[in-house]
């Protein structure tokens, strides 16, 4: 793990992997928004980090100056070739559509969207509900659980495996690879291991699907034609890997953060149990307050953005979580109001890269909370036990010990 010096000046030398930022990014955003709403750092790479809602959404819409070709918050070393030790098709297109600009973005996104339409997502509800109940069976009599590891972490990966048509038995392995890529990205070896594991696995799956196509997303990507031509293998591989990478850590983090909130705010928990009709608004509010995902953009040309001298190749961290806490966009942003009526949050991004899986993520979050609250309406954080949070690209609890009667 790359060791970094403690941060003393957040305006000119920020670090999203700093322990202080991992523990409490909120107060750092609050003080910076007043004095320097677009802080800069030279750590890892020259990077800017807009914290105001208006800046984050404006940059997300300005695809001419801000490209999505490099979206990793923790960049790979410039001289490190991610495909160096990887025997397979070159991921020269990265993980489209997330790491693509139009036109590649446009058609790859269109191939994915129908799989996550609200109608399709409705059909995944029974499976998700059964899964949650089964997980709860495993610990609801025990009086204690790790709400992150035993529950939240187990849900999205299995739902995605079903959509991709890959074995849910490998869920723990998938989770390990995705964490290596996103959570431990500062450790080049782990990141490489995760990427290789994932890509090699999907490569073998593509071969299998080609000979025995099913009715899953992978098979469809292999048989579909765009402008009369089949989709390049490297693109299919990138898209499959993206669906797993984007759908697992993110949703698990949202479920975990929401359970953390409900464990530590008994008045909100009891209200949600008493007024289940509040659930849809509550879900949006929890997504707003604990938005897990920060993305990156790359500046395409030297230019000045609101007084910041941006240089071609600079990184811009799209701090959707900070935008969601901007007092100019939300009244009392640091207070969770389960019935907040006006809530234009951007937990799923803004503009053309709006999360393609947002319907699925919302459904999983809602079903996971409903099933938990039905079985375990009263629970609290286990006193004296350590909660660990991951941060950087995806923020959420990784170990969350709770107790219940």
């Amino acid at each position, binding site marked *: 793990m790359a060791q970094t010096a403690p941060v003393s000046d957040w305006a000119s030398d920020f670090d999203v992997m700093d322990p202080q930022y991992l523990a409490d990014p909120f107060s750092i955003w609050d003080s910076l928004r007043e004095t320097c709403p677009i802080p800069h750092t030279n750590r890892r790479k020259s990077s800017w980090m807009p914290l105001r809602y208006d800046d984050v*959404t404006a940059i997300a819409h300005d695809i001419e100056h801000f490209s999505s070709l490099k979206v990793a918050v923790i960049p790979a070393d410039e001289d490190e070739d991610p495909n160096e030790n990887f025997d397979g098709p070159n991921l020269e297109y990265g993980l489209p559509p997330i790491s693509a600009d139009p036109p590649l973005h446009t058609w790859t996104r*269109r191939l994915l*969207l*129908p799989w996550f*339409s*609200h*109608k*399709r997502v409705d059909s995944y509800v029974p499976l998700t509900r059964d899964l949650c109940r089964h997980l709860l069976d495993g610990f609801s009599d025990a009086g204690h659980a790790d709400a992150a590891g035993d529950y939240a972490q187990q849900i999205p990966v299995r739902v995605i495996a079903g959509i991709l048509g890959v074995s849910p038995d490998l869920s723990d392995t998938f989770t390990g690879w995705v964490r290596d890529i996103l959570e431990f990205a500062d450790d080049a070896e782990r990141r490489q291991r995760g990427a290789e594991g994932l890509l090699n696995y999907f490569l073998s799956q593509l071969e299998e699907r080609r000979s025995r196509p099913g009715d899953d997303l992978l098979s469809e990507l292999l048989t579909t034609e765009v402008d009369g031509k089949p989709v390049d293998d490297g693109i299919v591989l990138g898209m499959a890997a993206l669906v797993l990478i984007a759908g697992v850590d993110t949703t698990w983090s949202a479920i975990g953060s929401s359970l953390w909130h409900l464990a530590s705010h008994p008045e909100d928990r009891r209200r949600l149990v008493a007024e289940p009709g509040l659930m*849809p608004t509550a879900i*949006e509010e929890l997504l707003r307050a604990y938005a897990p995902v920060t993305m990156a953009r790359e500046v395409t040309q030297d230019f000045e953005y609101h007084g910041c001298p941006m240089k071609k190749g600079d990184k811009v961290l799209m701090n959707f979580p900070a935008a969601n806490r901007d007092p100019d966009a939300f009244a009392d942003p640091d207070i969770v109001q389960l019935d907040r*009526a*006006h*809530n*234009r*949050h*951007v937990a*799923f991004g*803004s*503009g*053309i890269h*709006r999360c*393609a899986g*947002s*319907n699925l993520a*919302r459904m999983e979050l809602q079903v996971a909370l409903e099933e938990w609250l039905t079985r375990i309406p009263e629970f609290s954080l286990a006193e004296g036990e350590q909660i660990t949070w991951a941060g950087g690209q995806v923020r959420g609890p990784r170990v969350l010990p709770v107790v219940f009667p």
Partner: protein
Amino acid sequence: MKIRVDPDKCQGHARCYGLAPEIFDVDDYGQASVIVDEVPPELEEKARLAVANCPEYAIEIVSD
């Protein structure tokens, strides 16, 4: 009340459909549309909520 969705602004967040499926639909590609000619009075409040929650400012009230 008459409302419309600006197709150039809509990015398919589906907040409108989530709040008021009686008024909006969102197609397979994330494009929202208004499925009623006139918003009936009892749904006006919901329509206003959809306007206030669309992250892309894509929903307009054409006439009140």
